[in-house]
């Protein structure tokens, strides 16, 4: 099941890259193609942020992950590099749990 996702996902993502080298360049001139390509990652990444922060299965909860996300946003506003953002979020959540706050 996981192997299927890993391989099907990888092959599809590779073909998406490859197909761009075979299509006519004029596809890029289509404004709606360009718009969707720019907006799609934004909608999907924002949805992933929301779900990974609040969802446990099909239930919405508030737990230490939200504090981690807030810490990550502060780090981003301070222009911290990627790894720092991720570590700050993890440490914040872990510290709250160790202190018995948040689950």
């Amino acid at each position, binding site marked *: 099941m*996981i*192997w*299927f*996702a*890993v*391989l099907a*996902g990888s092959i*599809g*993502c*590779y073909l*998406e*890259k*490859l*197909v*761009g*080298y075979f*299509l006519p360049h004029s596809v*890029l001139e289509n404004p*709606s193609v360009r*718009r969707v*390509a720019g*907006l*799609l*990652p*934004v*909608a*999907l*990444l*924002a*949805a*992933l*942020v*929301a*779900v*990974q*922060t*609040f*969802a446990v*299965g*099909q*239930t*919405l909860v508030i737990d*230490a*992950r939200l504090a*981690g*996300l807030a810490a*990550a946003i502060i780090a*981003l506003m301070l222009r911290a*590099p*990627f*790894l720092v*953002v*991720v*570590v700050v*979020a*993890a*440490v*914040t959540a*872990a510290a709250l*749990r160790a202190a018995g706050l948040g689950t």
Partner: protein
Amino acid sequence: MSTPDLPSSHRRRITSSAVGIGLATGAYGLSFGAISVASGLTAVQTQTLSLLMFTGGSQFALVGVLGAGGGAIAAVLTAWLLGARNGMYALSMAPTLQVTGLRRLAAAELTIDESTAMALAHPEPPEAARHAFWRTGLSVYVLWNIGTLLGALGAAAIGDPATLGLDAAIPAAFIALLWPRLVDRTMWAVALAGAAVALVLTPLLRPGLPVLAAGLVALVASMLIGRRT
């Protein structure tokens, strides 16, 4: 990969930026490796993703959806949708790179955010753009995979992901990927709408599907903008 007409000082400058970008993404690969193993993938599956899929957003999305209990199909579709932008990068790189045969297959694999951005940042002469693309692509490929390996082995060695806050690292990774894209009001509106759609649908649909549904927000927004202009 040969760049005969480029002065060596110019070439060295590009190469050193490429290595810098590779080191930064290697650190990010470290977090991918750790998060992937914490999400339930084996180290081998995690490394396979970095070797074959080689596009960070899609890799995080795939392990995120699987780790949240979403089905394999939802995980694969989310990864594909996020990877679609690489096809646009390939389209814009094709006239510059002029690749055929095996080199085209290799160029395709290395067509990601970083290599495309570096090539676009060095448009003239075309040799500089080609050098920037290949050097950045190769440097990110090698260091991303080393980072993944170290992160996966590290996470496999430690216990419960929640104690270390690795579950909180996942949304942080996604917001860090999203942040540079929030450049104007339209992007903020699409992001907030996407997040809202996913949260409203979470109690109603299997994990993974709410994120896919949020992809529709991008289509609707694109149609609305198209009608307005």
